[in-house]
């Protein structure tokens, strides 16, 4: 006997069926579609004349009165948790020994710079100025070019939404060094810079360390992690990604 299999069109109907039942994300739909498809094909093994529609409604009845709602709810929650864990894992991967050594080296260079410069505040302002220019250029020009992904018409990916929300975090996080002004008591009042901590080697060291840690974290957040997650998305969902 010839086994009846689902056609491409019927598979597409299953995706639409998921959407009609409130499951909008492709990464959640995929598995439900495969499950429905398996169950329908099994029904056809017993009765290959059963219509697609009848087979589908009989299979969907098996999901109980809540249908997809509970699966969808838990899945979206767990997917978000999974992506969050994945991001933390990439952060740990990034901060291996070479990066730790790099942090120490840059901290010491900045520390020496602070100690040797005639005016620490000016040095600090120049450094943060350079940082902001580089960061802004990167985030507004290079980042969108590198990490924008377009999906096929009408498709939504939970993982991509999460990925795009990370960009917002980078903006927010990227502006944090402004707070170092406050933390270190550098106040710009009446165009006069004051730095109560100046003179103490410890405060210079702490400041140098914080600036370094910050800079390196930004590199992780704005380059390494997005690159890794973009790879994950392309590897898993290449069939719905346009560019």
């Amino acid at each position: 006997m010839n086994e009846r299999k689902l056609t491409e069109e019927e598979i597409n109907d299953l995706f639409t069926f998921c959407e009609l039942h409130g499951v909008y994300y492709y990464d959640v739909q995929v598995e439900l579609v495969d499950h429905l498809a398996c169950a329908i094909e099994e029904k056809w093994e017993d009765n290959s004349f059963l219509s697609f529609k009848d087979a589908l409604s009989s299979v969907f009845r098996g999901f109980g009165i809540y249908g997809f709602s509970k699966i969808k709810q838990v899945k979206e929650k767990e997917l978000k948790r999974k992506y969050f864990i994945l991001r933390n894992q990439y952060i740990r991967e990034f901060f291996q020994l070479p990066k730790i050594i790099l942090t120490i080296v840059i901290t010491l260079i900045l520390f020496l710079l602070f100690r040797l410069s005639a005016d620490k505040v000016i040095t600090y302002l120049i450094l943060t100025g350079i940082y902001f220019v580089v960061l802004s250029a990167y985030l507004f020009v290079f980042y969108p070019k590198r990490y924008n992904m377009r999906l096929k018409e009408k498709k939504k990916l939970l993982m991509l939404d999460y990925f795009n929300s990370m960009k917002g975090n980078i903006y927010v996080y990227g502006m944090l060094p402004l707070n170092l002004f406050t933390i270190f008591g550098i106040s710009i009042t009446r165009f006069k810079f004051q730095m109560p901590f100046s003179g103490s080697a410890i405060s210079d060291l702490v400041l140098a360390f914080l600036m370094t840690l910050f800079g390196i974290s930004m590199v992780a957040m704005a380059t390494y992690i997005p690159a890794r997650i973009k790879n994950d998305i392309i590897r898993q969902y290449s069939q719905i990604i346009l560019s």
Partner: protein
Amino acid sequence: MGSNQLYKGSLATIILKLLEEKGRMYGYQITQEVKAISAGEFVITEGALYPMLHKLEADGMLTVETEMIGNRMRKYYSITHDGKKEVVDRMAEMEAFIRHMQTLLNPNIELA
């Protein structure tokens, strides 16, 4: 049958153990396999299986790989190193539980 209620609490253990023995499996296959092994006694509903699979995946007990099967994509689950350790713990817990239930509900067995 009310017995499904008893199985419910052991769903994660059943899934992990199954994947440890069979290697990688996909969702529908797991429901069919459990039905077959338990001779229809225990039926995992989709509503229970997929949330559990995703929870275990997020916890790092399972990993997922996707593959195109004909004209559709399929997600295969397999057990991780952490998952295997979890199986050992959960099986020991389960055996202790069964022993305790036996003593509690039928103390005579102990005497025999």
